[in-house]
């Protein structure tokens, strides 16, 4: 049985959480003002996901 403090995340869940946390941190560190930050966070988060999924598809043929 898995202890309560252990996490089992799928590849996609891990990527989404990573992208979200890093986007928020980068947004707050590099931008000022709520609107600028929100825009940066959203844009960065979307790019993280698109590039992550894109790299996954590029690597897909090598796994077969």
């Amino acid at each position: 049985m898995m202890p309560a403090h252990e996490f089992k995340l799928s590849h996609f869940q891990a990527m989404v959480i990573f992208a979200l946390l890093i986007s928020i941190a980068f947004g707050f560190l590099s931008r000022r003002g709520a609107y600028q930050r929100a825009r940066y966070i959203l844009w960065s988060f979307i790019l993280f996901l698109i590039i992550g999924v894109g790299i996954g598809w590029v690597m897909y043929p090598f796994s077969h």
Partner: protein
Amino acid sequence: MPDEIPIAESTTAVQVAPSAPPYSATAKDRHRRDALALTIAAAAWFLPGLGHALLKMWGRALVCFSTVALLVILGAGMRGNIFSRNGEDAFAKLGYIADLGAGSFYFVAQALEINGPDVSHANGDYGTRLLATAGVLNMLAALHAYEVARARKA
């Protein structure tokens, strides 16, 4: 003419510069600011968000603390590898530097990971990356706090 001001009268109003060297105060201030910036960077490294909190940047402080804490909790919870000082190869040494970037949270991660790392599954491997990311992110935040304290960044 009565409106004309005598030259001698106008020149006496100008104060002569003080005899102290003009650059001593500025250099002293700069040194003090550099020392303060280094202290803030060390504080930011030791406890994520503390550097920004000392600079009264509350939002950034809260975000730095929360993101690093969440990454460490998740990474340790996924049984990621926390690198130790005695790394065998260059990757292990680099991993140790990255992990140590989280400051005191490095020890929090060690305390949280009771069962030790398990990188035989992808989950543990992701955990390793999340722990390293927490450290590198904290180093970036500490560098940002240092730059702000030196008045190079807003």
